[in-house]
């Protein structure tokens, strides 16, 4: 096997089932790849070689013993550091949890372990998942594998970069306002936010409980669906989880990949496009629509007038819930404890000093904003109004479903921006999530698949959003689009990404790395049709 890390997870599963490769071999290959490229990418906060290899060996043994195994058994996975892992440090990208060792596994981590997927490590993220660039990690930013000078998106930039840089075939993410889909879009990978409640949140360190959802991250639609099936399903420990079977996402992804989408009706959201959207992003989006139309998908424009209020509503609801969820980081039971330099070291003073030292600026900003929105005298105007906007957005979706099966838009208005570019301008950073947020507010599923490269040579994403519980149809449409695009490009988009090993070996600086991905030879390559 030349390079195991270039395989898809489904291919790895096939080789494992056929006995052509072992989980230990696969895991080793990925650990080696991490050693090679992660110093440049910094997708991982922590790798777990011993743990992963032991789990891999156990998976191989189970296979030899003839145990009934999950389809992905033996295929390694990376886990966003926002998910509790028993006995393994879980930081959420924050100083305040620098030394927290959870006493329990998140339900999705337990499921991944039960399905015998070796856990390679914990991936980098914006602190407590607050951000769209992974620059708000207390442990340094992650770099975009397409251009190391650029951000990989966020908050799940670590998970997206890990799969994009072939450090892991699969990863777990969490999506509160786009933290799975936006990084997927700007790294040329796939990421899905399941229907709210479709995947357990137990053990997901909460940012905004009514918006958060754990989801799969991978390089293609089928792998994403397969991982979705591993982590989905009811969990009595999360009372907001749906007590329903996991939708047949892999089956429907396969149907879509086979081109079976005729008759599906999709709506292009009028409010999510045009002004404020990069030309290359819009071009790739329009081309994708054309491909879908060629496959027999019916396309119409749909207006969702309340979506213009989604971002403001989100930036009230999310910080409000976050201000409460993050109160527990108070230096009493776990985590950092800082005693103030002066004055009496009372509980109040220690809490204040610890939170001052332990939280980064974006976390503080959101906690203060949320405290403001919930405080006496402002609640009705801010939090109360935002909850009403949520109703309006749900109504927009409901009326859309009367005419179409799914809604589509560019995932993100732009391609990846440069590290540091938006750090001092929170509002412009927030705009990254303008197209992904409505799905979180309504609890509906969303998926982002690569749609090509923009005029700057950087990946763009195509987002599909559907009605609650209709996750499988998203995979069907996304699968069809992926198949059509890969066919058009002559290979997966990531084949056009720069060679990170060569970059690392050449000692090239991050600044030089950005030229990769533009030398694609296909006449009809990812940057667009011949025009």
């Amino acid at each position, binding site marked *: 096997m030349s390079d195991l890390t270039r395989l898809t997870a489904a291919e790895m599963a096939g080789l494992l089932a056929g006995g052509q490769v072992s989980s230990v071999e696969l895991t080793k290959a990925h650990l080696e790849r991490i050693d090679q490229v992660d110093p440049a990418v910094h997708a991982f906060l922590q790798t777990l070689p011993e743990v992963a290899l032991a789990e891999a060996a156990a998976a191989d043994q189970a296979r030899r013993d003839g145990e009934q195994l999950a389809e992905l058994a033996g295929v390694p996975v990376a886990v966003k550091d926002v998910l509790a892992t028993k006995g393994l440090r879980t930081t959420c990208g924050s100083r305040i949890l620098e030394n927290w060792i959870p*006493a329990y596994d998140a339900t999705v981590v337990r499921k991944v372990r039960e399905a015998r997927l070796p856990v390679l490590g914990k991936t980098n993220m914006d602190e407590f998942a607050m951000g769209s660039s992974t620059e708000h990690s207390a442990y340094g930013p992650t770099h975009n594998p397409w251009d190391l000078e650029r951000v990989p998106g966020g908050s799940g930039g670590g998970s997206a970069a890990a799969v994009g840089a072939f450090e892991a075939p699969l990863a777990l993410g969490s999506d509160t306002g786009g933290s799975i889909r936006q990084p997927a879009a700007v790294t040329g990978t796939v990421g899905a936010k399941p229907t709210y409640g479709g995947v357990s949140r*137990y053990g997901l*360190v909460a940012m905004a*409980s009514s918006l958060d959802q754990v989801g799969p991250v991978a390089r293609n639609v089928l792998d994403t669906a397969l991982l979705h099936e591993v982590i989905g399903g009811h969990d009595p*420990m999360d*009372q907001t989880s749906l007590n329903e079977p996991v939708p047949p996402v892999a089956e429907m992804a396969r149907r879509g990949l086979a081109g079976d989408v005729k008759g599906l009706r999709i709506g292009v959201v009028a409010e999510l496009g045009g002004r404020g959207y990069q030309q290359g992003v819009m071009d790739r989006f329009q081309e994708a629509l054309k491909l879908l139309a060629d496959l027999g998908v019916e396309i119409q424009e749909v207006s969702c007038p309340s979506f213009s209020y989604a971002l403001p509503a989100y930036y009230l609801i999310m910080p409000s819930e976050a201000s*409460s969820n993050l*109160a527990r980081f108070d230096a009493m039971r776990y985590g950092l404890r800082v005693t103030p330099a002066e004055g009496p070291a009372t509980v109040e003073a220690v809490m204040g000093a610890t939170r001052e030292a332990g939280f980064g600026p974006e976390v503080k900003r959101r906690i203060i904003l949320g405290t403001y929105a919930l405080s006496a005298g402002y609640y009705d105007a801010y*939090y109360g109004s935002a909850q009403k906007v949520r109703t309006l957005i749900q109504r927009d979706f409901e009326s859309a479903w009367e005419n179409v099966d799914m809604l589509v838009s560019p995932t993100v208005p732009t391609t990846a921006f440069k590290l540091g570019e938006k750090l001092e301008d929170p509002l412009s950073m927030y705009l990254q999530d303008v197209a992904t947020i409505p799905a979180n507010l309504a609890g509906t599923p969303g998926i982002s698949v690569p749609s090509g490269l923009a005029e700057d040579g950087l990946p763009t994403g195509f987002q599909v959003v559907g009605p609650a519980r209709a996750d499988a149809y998203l995979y069907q449409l996304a699968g069809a689009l992926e198949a059509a695009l890969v066919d058009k490009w002559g290979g997966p988009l990531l084949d056009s990404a720069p060679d990170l090993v060569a970059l690392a070996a050449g000692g090239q600086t991050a600044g030089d790395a950005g030229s990769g991905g533009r030398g694609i030879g296909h006449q009809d390559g990812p940057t667009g049709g011949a025009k």
Partner: protein
Amino acid sequence: MSELYDFEDAIAAFDPVMGLEVHVELSTLTKMFCGCANKFGAPPNSQVCPVCLGLPGAMPAVNHKAVESAIRLGLALNCQIATRSTFARKNYFYPDLAKDYQISQYEDPIDYDGFIDVELADGANFKIAIERAHMEEDAAKNTHVGGEAGRIQGAAYTLVDYNRGGTPLVEIVTKPIEGTGARAGEVARAYVAAIRELVVALGISDARMEQGSLRADVNLSLRPKTADPAAQAAVPFGKRSETKNVNSLRAIERAVNYEIRRQAGLLSAGQLVVQETRHWHEDTGSTSPGRSKEEADDYRYFPEPDLLPIEPARAWVEELRATLPELPAKRRARLQAEWGFTDREMRAAVNGGALDLIEATVAAGATPAGARKWWLGELSRVANERGLELAALPVTPQDIAQVEELVGSGKINDKLARKVLEGVLAGEGSPEQIVAAQGLTVVSDDAALGAAIDAALAAQPDIAEKIRSGRVQAAGAIVGAVMKATRGQADAARVRELILERFSAD
């Protein structure tokens, strides 16, 4: 600081208005939002899990039994049961609050608009209107170290045991209680006693105030008293204090009376009552301000996103209504009729905490009057001496029924019965065992009694003369002497008969 006002003067000048908040810990098997055991007295931090320890990522899950108990309590309090009830987060920082917010209910409590009738010691009745009863989780237990006797003031540090954290609570909140005047303290006490009795009858709580499984907060304010009582209700309420940590029935009455006197002192001196939390101190019988520094409460309540609304099906509510036991007031009325007690006897039984004991004693075969006599007489005296509740005495209703039977069959008399009870209380066995072991049977052998009578008559010739001259009541002295000589074991009635026989034969 102003002086405490004289209570009578305070009541003459001011009208007290109360609001009572009673927290009832539910005796479910598990906590409100996690599967940890809900048991008092376990070693520190041995009944905790990611949920009740507030570990990052953990999520609450509502205990069905706790909701059921809250609905049953609401029904017993004549409340409406919400058709849609929601949980909310109450946000404030405190080390005993694992998540630094308490999951409670704010806008839509499970129970609302009810009432309970309470009866004072003299039989007077008050109807207390219930505003709401809502579910929430209890805080952990703080132990303050390094200061004076476990006080928070002056403590060097604090130790936290999260076992109690997350225990299911129902908080019952009254509407303002007006028109109680000088009886405010009594009413408050009777109300809390009635709630205690109710939750015990429902089987939803141990309601042990000394263990904190039932706790009361007393809100009290004064307003100027109007000359015309009819005009009183129109006078706006004054600023109130909220006294916490009031952990016995007696303390509730004392705390109310103390606050009336304190606030009257302030108001009479032209000062203002500060709206604040105060703590009750059992040792000094006084209250003190609860916070060292003024911080405006801003709890930033918002709907708990991790928990879904409760919409109890009406059929379920009716099913639960059908499970309600006979409620205390109704039961008292029934028992009084069955037992034929006067109002006064019944109140004595209730106030003495003897109702269940009398009922059980009657069930074991005693007559109601007999059971009442023993429990409210001899045994109440002993309990009082020992500073115990009647029910805590080491004697069972079966014991009392047996004593009654022994007396009824003439085997022992009242005097011997007392001796037998002493033995039971000393742990010497059942009444029958004690009678057998100590040979405590009544002497009714005429020959033996005759000798004792002869001796007594011989020792008191003047009495003998009186009887002979027809003053039959003088025989009592001879009966007494015979009883004394037989150490109480004589059958007094038979002795009397024998004496009178003897003189009529003359």
